[in-house]
């Protein structure tokens, strides 16, 4: 029982953070059509802002979510309104735009990382927050990881309700399917796309904040998280938010089980599952 809980809750923790990382990217690609290679850099910036505020001002990392999220959202929103909107209107075709935006996000990745290196250097940073054990039916877990899970789950649920229930959420979903027609319905497409990019960045920032409570952080870590996010998003089915949740949870569970059996195989297992699932379902779990 304890072992089962160890694996299960461990899987939820990993899955929760994977899902949170992936949802933002899924939104950016699914709606705004930007495969954002700099996604991980936003995660990194979120993590470093939280670390800096905790280390220098003693600000509770959970409280810093309220600062980091909006700040990064604004950056994402403005980036889209300036750079990507321009790119979109000047591109000859949607495919050309996807290629072009891919390059642009590569550029962004370089720029953000370099700025972060200038600001924070390249060494490893970490802080100890809520690093105590919590017992659940005899299985012990680190409190900071459980907190991370709770917040990740909370953010994902709120975000899901936002998309499913609100006027803006519906507009985003409509724009994901057919932006031009959504425009005919009265949706301000430029704003919605920028909003999606900003929200994607916001999710990345929040994920970074939460991650920094549990893992050491480096200014050079961005790409690793981008890769995880892309894998999860593709696994779930591009553009499907729910798919990203499921993809994240599957990877988390698989990771947790394999970590239990043989940790050295965990990454092999991730990619193996990923490749196998894609071969069975070529458009991801919830893809069309």
């Amino acid at each position: 029982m304890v072992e089962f809980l160890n694996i299960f809750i461990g899987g939820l923790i990993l899955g929760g953070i994977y899902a949170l990382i992936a949802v933002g990217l899924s939104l950016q690609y699914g709606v705004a059509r930007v495969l954002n290679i700099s996604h991980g850099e936003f995660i990194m910036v979120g993590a470093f802002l939280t670390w800096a505020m905790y280390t220098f001002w003693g600000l509770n990392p959970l409280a810093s979510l309220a600062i980091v999220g909006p700040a990064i959202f604004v950056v994402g929103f403005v980036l889209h309104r300036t750079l990507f909107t321009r790119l979109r209107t000047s591109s000859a075709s949607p495919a050309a735009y996807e290629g072009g935006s891919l390059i642009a996000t590569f550029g962004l990745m370089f720029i953000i990382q370099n700025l972060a290196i200038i600001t924070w250097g390249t060494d490893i940073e970490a802080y100890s927050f809520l690093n105590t054990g919590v017992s659940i039916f005899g299985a012990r877990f680190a409190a900071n990881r459980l907190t991370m899970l709770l917040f990740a789950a909370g953010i994902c649920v709120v975000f899901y309700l936002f998309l499913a229930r609100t006027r803006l959420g519906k507009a985003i979903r409509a724009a994901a399917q057919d932006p031009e027609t959504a425009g005919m319905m009265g949706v301000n497409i430029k704003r919605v796309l920028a909003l999606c990019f900003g929200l994607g960045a916001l999710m990345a920032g929040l994920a970074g904040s939460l991650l920094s409570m549990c893992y050491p952080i480096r200014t050079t870590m961005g790409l690793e998280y981008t890769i995880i996010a892309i894998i999860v998003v593709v696994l779930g089915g591009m553009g499907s938010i729910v798919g990203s949740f499921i993809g994240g949870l599957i990877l988390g569970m698989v990771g947790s089980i394999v970590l239990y059996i043989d940790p050295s195989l965990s990454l092999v297992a991730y990619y193996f599952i990923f490749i196998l699932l894609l071969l069975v379902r070529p458009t991801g779990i919830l893809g069309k």
Partner: protein
Amino acid sequence: MRRKLLILMVSCTMVLALAAPLFAAGCDEAEPEKEVIVFGAARPLTGPFAVYEEMAFGPIYKMWVDEVNARGGLYIEEYGKRLPIELKIYDDGSDMGTMTSMLERLILEDEVDFILPPASTAFLFAAAPIANKHGYILMGAEGGGTTLTPLLPSLPYYFGVLNYSDHYQMPVLADILSDAGIETAAIMYLEDLHGVEYSGVAGIELTNAGIDIVMTKSVPLGVMDVSSIINQAKTLGAEAFLSFCYPDENFLAIGTAIALDYNPDVFLTGPGANFAFFAGVFGPAAEGIMGYGAWNTKSSAASEDFYEKFIALYDPGLLDWWGHNLYYAGLQFFEQAIEEAGTLDQAVIREVMATSTFDTILGPTWFDMTADGEGGGLLAEECYTGQVGQWQNGVFEVVDPGANRTAPPVIPKPAWPAEE
């Protein structure tokens, strides 16, 4: 037609671009008076290894260059004067291909006088043959390993300074553990040259010392959860937990052990525990944690001086209690060998380095060369200030048996601090 013209234009540009540097190389002007000594290096300013540049060798070589220049430079008899040092650092982006090219560029195109090593063991392995081919002395800083030892006879220009697994660390650890009566140990190691070597050597040395290794688990780079390993070690009741990983995984292991309340008698980790900022991150929980490679201000008066100089320049959190004094000593040794040779001819300097003993912050310092004296060398065992350290009251104490010891090991380590 335009397209063809276009093709033509581009090919012409290519030819010109190719020819220009050749031409420039062909008409070298007469050698001007030597004004400056250039040290070149391909270093990871970006990418995953950038942390080395910031925390390991980076601060040390910069500090050393400034000091030498403050004295007016290196005195070279051949020129009859002191020549200041200039650094030429390229970014290799943590990529092997870029590093090898940059190194050859430094040697062939920039014709630097000396090179400094790239970061990480694998990169050192790749840099050593290149340096040897061109007859450049390569001091090995961040890295070294048993894999390199058999190659030393073919690498006469290689001088490694850092201690590593069977280069005295694990045998000393085995002594400490068996002295303390430890009977069982669990090993977690990273799937990387470092982890494989350490776990391999530790396996031999600890077993020889009569310690039973009850668990050996490897983790991949980028692992995000090690609780199953900690849980297993706890279940097995391993008295010593040895984590042969890098800071990311080591930090994860310690955090997880605290959360899961696994408090073995000995908790030792690889790179990470040796950094000064480690104590800051873990606070009281750092107490009693061991790491390999060790020195502190009590090691010698020279160490104390070096420490003062370092913190006057850098954030004290950047201090590395494993390698910093070794890198610095290596540079001091190099510097004295150059002045002793009185020339910039590397073959001559190499002979000086292979055969001399110089005073550095380590005390009398020399290299153990291969038996015939024709190959490369490693810093001699007697020169090291310590092989194993332990955090005690905020100080990374050297706990080796013998003269290097600055404090006896505390085994079992104190319990993790109670929840705040």
